[in-house]
């Protein structure tokens, strides 16, 4: 390992580490980055560039590096596109080069370099068009050539967390300016956070310091997004600890001390491994004790080169020359080092790493004088093109930038409330002031964006072709769109465009900075909401019983409802048939705790109900229930349910499962915004009650077996009545309402007693073979009975009249949505009406989701007459049936239509019927 004996302030030589890169084992020290350790081991080529597959090495020393990207780790922890300059070394680290085949040194993709003259920016817009049908094949090749690293193929074994925090002052950047600002801010007792993306951050008194933490985004009202990499410097996170934490921090104010990033210079073949940002070269020595080369040339347009030269010489690097592009400025001498003013590097050589540079003096126009070329052997070329302040978060917050001539770069121009930019980020550059870009000419590629292989010629081509806006330039050439977000290339690209358009740089403009500052892992953004925790699961008080008793579940919004309860190896169809028949012929129970339940109190509840339902509620007596339908104000059905009159000024409303939340919000809206004069108070009580429906001809007999003080006979509890009493020692409410069309009761008890109630019902019905049933049987039962539901039938475009509920529409009062019923579209013929369907042959299943037609063969002359809404096999009738929404359907009962389902090649002849298939007179419910 090449290490300087005394330089290298960040490494701990007592803690050697071993790691592998492309299968070779190397050694480094604790405190190294992967980049510094590879450099110490003499590894120069790290990867291949995006487009031309040119060898790329280490170019920077931090998050700005566009070049040294590696595939980290392996298996389910594989991570593509990691910047070696930010990867902290740990024992056993495994890294691979990427974007090459078969190997880093012998990459077939590099053959593209031979034809690269035919592949300028945007070449793909100009070709691959003939023959048109070949495009998928061309595209397949393009896709395989593109991309960088590879994604893992299995779920991440590590986890991520999110934390929320508040502070008075958030200081971003732990350099001198940030530390001073943080100390100052803490003096008045403010809660101050200081964060830095690097691993090293010394503690400060009265300041919360967070290393390895990147502030990546500024959001509304002082919210900042931070990612703390808690486990990335380890082979794997400590047991139980997260890999990364997404911090959502609300800060009273923010101080941006994010420093500045050095710009490269643009010249022919300026991308070879061994060409580094000058500041980065100095850092490798000072921080890691690694000399990036043995013999260096420094090319600069500013004074910072001279300090870098001193550092390199101190570190034992021979500095062959400093090429200062400027005319004689301040003459500085450095012992043993030739200084050439008014010169430039015009080319480089070295197939797998720099071997030589070509320099030349510049004429009065700033062009190289070719006949005066000179070659200098070197394995390190430091480029110093001036510094660009890192103002990303300021710009994200809407701050505007201005180009300052005196320092030749973009700095904050406007004030953004709550944000202060300090230090080099605010343009307080100490040396390092150099004009962006200096173009030389020639055929060899002069790179501006090292990751996406965007050259000066590409920028000129874009300008020539009319892509004159910086946004067009970016999109046409992909300049600055790599994983480095153009940190080293954007300003040079803008300068090149300005040059091509012959405009002053400030007139060209700048692309918008957008979050994130550096890429943020999808894992950190998702946090703990993965797997089963993707979204919360709502559980009824009976969920455990369902799970313990073999229910198959189906998602219903956030709920998981029992779909059916198979016995042994029973198929779904058989289980559902058995459950349906139990309801029709015997007795069965179902958990309906998911239905929304809203408690209404107040002197105006009846008036309010009158306004929200299409039917009247003022006559509903205490002790009775009524079915109601709600519309939106556009006249379409919004929800349905029942309301029970509980006592003076007290009602309970039920809603559908899916609409429990929306109905509550809807009621609150009308009460608080539209009719604030009404005295009504609403409470959602869905979670407070467990509700079980007992349905079937034997349900009364079952209830009479219960230990209860209630009577269930018709005269004591008539259809649509309700009573309160005790079951066992549990206070219960029993509502005689039915969804299935059978004699049925809904039993409500406080949630904690739901399980006890369920068990009592099972016990009371044991001798009559009571069974539980699920939502699929419910669907069959309600379809047989001709009940529409929200979704399949009432799909948000259906009116009450469409459902055959025209008679329910009260003419004596106004209600939500009523006025819309007089709009032309709701008055005309041709609306879809709810009907029933039976297959003409009495046995062929009706395809769900079929489109109705008046002929067997589709075609332009076929009338499209609506669609199948719900298709079931009616166990009761022993044949398939369906509900459908059919054009003018109420007038078409008895007509023959065809249910077309081209997605599975089925056409079924059907007869249109009344939607009610069983017990049209309602005798069973009233039994």
């Amino acid at each position, binding site marked *: 390992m090449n290490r300087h004996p005394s330089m290298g302030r960040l490494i701990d030589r007592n803690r050697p580490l071993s790691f592998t890169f492309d299968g070779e084992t190397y050694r480094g020290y604790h405190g190294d980055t992967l980049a510094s350790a590879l450099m110490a081991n003499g590894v120069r080529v790290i990867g291949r560039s995006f487009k031309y597959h040119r060898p790329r090495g280490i170019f920077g020393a931090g998050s700005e590096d566009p070049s040294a990207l590696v595939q980290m780790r392996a298996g389910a922890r594989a991570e593509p596109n990691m910047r070696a300059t930010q990867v902290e070394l740990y024992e056993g680290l495994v890294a691979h080069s990427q974007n090459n085949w078969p190997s880093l040194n012998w990459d077939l993709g590099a053959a593209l370099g031979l034809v690269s003259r035919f592949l300028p920016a945007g070449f793909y817009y100009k070709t691959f068009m003939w023959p048109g049908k070949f495009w998928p094949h061309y595209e397949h090749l393009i896709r395989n050539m593109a991309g960088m690293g590879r994604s893992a193929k299995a779920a991440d074994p590590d986890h991520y967390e999110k934390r929320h925090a508040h502070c008075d002052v958030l200081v971003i950047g732990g350099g001198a300016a940030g530390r001073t600002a943080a100390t100052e801010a803490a003096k008045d007792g403010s809660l101050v956070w200081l964060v830095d993306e690097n691993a090293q951050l010394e503690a400060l008194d009265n300041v919360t310091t967070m290393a390895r933490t990147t502030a990546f985004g500024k*959001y*509304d*009202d*002082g*919210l900042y997004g931070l990612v703390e990499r808690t486990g990335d410097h380890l082979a794997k996170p400590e047991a139980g600890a997260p890999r990364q934490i997404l911090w959502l921090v*609300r800060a*009273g*104010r923010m101080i941006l001390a994010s420093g500045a990033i050095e710009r490269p210079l643009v010249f022919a073949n300026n991308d070879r491994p061994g060409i580094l940002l000058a500041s980065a070269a100095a850092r490798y020595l000072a921080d890691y004790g690694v000399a990036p080369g043995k013999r260096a040339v420094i090319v600069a347009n500013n004074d910072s080169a001279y300090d870098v030269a001193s550092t390199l010489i101190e570190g034992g690097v021979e500095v062959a020359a400093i090429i200062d592009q400027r005319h004689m400025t301040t003459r500085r001498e450095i012992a043993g080092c030739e200084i050439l003013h008014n010169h430039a590097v015009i080319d480089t050589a070295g197939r797998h790493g720099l071997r030589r540079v070509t320099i030349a003096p510049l004429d009065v126009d700033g062009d190289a004088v070719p006949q005066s070329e000179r070659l200098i052997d070197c394995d390190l070329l430091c480029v110093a093109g001036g510094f660009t302040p890192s103002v990303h978060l300021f710009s994200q917050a*809407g701050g505007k930038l201005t180009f300052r001539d005196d320092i030749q770069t973009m700095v904050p121009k406007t004030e*953004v*409330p*709550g*944000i202060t930019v300090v230090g080099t980020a605010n343009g307080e550059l100490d040396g390092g002031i150099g004009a962006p870009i200096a173009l030389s000419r020639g055929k060899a590629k002069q790179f501006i964006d090292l990751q996406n292989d965007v050259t000066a010629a590409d920028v000129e081509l874009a300008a020539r072709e009319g892509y004159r806006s910086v946004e067009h330039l970016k999109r046409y050439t992909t300049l600055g769109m790599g994983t480095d977000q153009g940190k080293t290339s954007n300003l040079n690209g803008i300068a090149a465009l300005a040059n091509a358009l012959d405009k002053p740089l400030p007139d060209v403009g700048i692309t918008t900075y957008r979050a994130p500052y550096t890429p943020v892992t999808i894992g950190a953004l998702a946090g703990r909401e993965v797997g089963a925790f993707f979204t919360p699961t709502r559980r009824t008080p009976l969920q455990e019983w369902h799970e313990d008793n073999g229910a198959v579940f189906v998602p219903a919004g956030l709920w998981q409802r029992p779909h059916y309860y198979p016995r042994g190896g029973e198929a779904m169809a058989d289980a559902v048939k058995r459950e349906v028949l139990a309801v029709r012929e015997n007795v069965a129970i179902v958990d309906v705790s998911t239905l929304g339940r809203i408690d209404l109190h107040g002197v105006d509840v009846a008036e309010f109900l009158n306004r929200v339902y299409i039917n009247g509620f003022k006559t509903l007596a205490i002790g009775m229930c009524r079915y109601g339908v709600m519309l939106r*104000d*556009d006249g379409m059905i919004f929800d349905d349910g029942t309301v029970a009159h509980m006592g003076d000024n007290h009602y309970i409303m039920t809603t559908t499962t899916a609409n429990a*939340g929306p109905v509550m*919000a809807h009621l*609150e*809206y009308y009460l*608080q*915004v*539209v009719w*604030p004069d009404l005295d009504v108070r609403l409470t959602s009580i869905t979670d407070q009650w467990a509700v079980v429906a007992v349905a079937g001809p034997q349900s009364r007999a079952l209830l009479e077996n219960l230990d209860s003080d209630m009577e269930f006979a018709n005269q004591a509890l008539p259809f649509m009545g309700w009573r309160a009493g005790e079951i066992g020692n549990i206070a219960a409410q029993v509502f005689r309402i039915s969804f299935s069309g059978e004699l049925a009761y809904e039993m409500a008890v406080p949630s904690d007693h739901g399980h006890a109630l369920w068990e009592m019902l099972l016990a009371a019905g044991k001798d009559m073979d009571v069974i539980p049933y699920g939502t699929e049987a419910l669907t069959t039962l309600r379809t047989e009975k001709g009940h529409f539901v929200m979704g399949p039938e009432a799909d948000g475009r259906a009116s009450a009249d469409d459902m055959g509920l025209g008679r329910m529409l009260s003419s004596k009062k*106004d209600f939500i949505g*009523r*006025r*819309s019923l*007089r*709009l*032309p579209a709701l008055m005309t013929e041709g609306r879809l009406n709810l009907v029933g369907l039976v297959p003409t042959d009495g046995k062929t299943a009706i395809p769900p989701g079929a489109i109705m037609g008046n002929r067997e063969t589709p075609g332009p002359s076929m009338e499209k007459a609506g669609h199948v809404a719900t298709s079931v096999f009616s166990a009761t009738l022993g044949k398939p049936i369906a509900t459908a929404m059919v054009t003018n359907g109420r007038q078409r009962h008895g007509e023959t239509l065809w249910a077309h389902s081209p997605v599975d090649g089925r056409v079924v002849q059907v007869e249109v019927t009344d939607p009610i298939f069983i017990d049209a007179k309602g005798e069973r419910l009233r039994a």
Partner: protein
Amino acid sequence: MILLTCPHCGPRGISEFTYRGDATVARPTAPEGVDDTSWVEYLHLRDNHKGPHDELWHHVQGCRRWLRVRRDVVTHKVISCCDLAGDPAGDVAESNP
């Protein structure tokens, strides 16, 4: 994330609220008495200008009150947030930058 200072609950992120747009839309007090045009305008037309915008937010994961918020739709800065029932205490809510 925008902070709304709910007059009942204090400053909360807007993920606790749901939105219902233009607060200046008034439902006709006697819908049966208005013509189709007025009714359709009530249903479909909403204020959509740039700058300060009066809008309704519902604190669904808080006090369940409907709030009237004045917010600049270009900068997202909240200018005021009050209960529809009127609550002087909540009239002006300064938001953080």
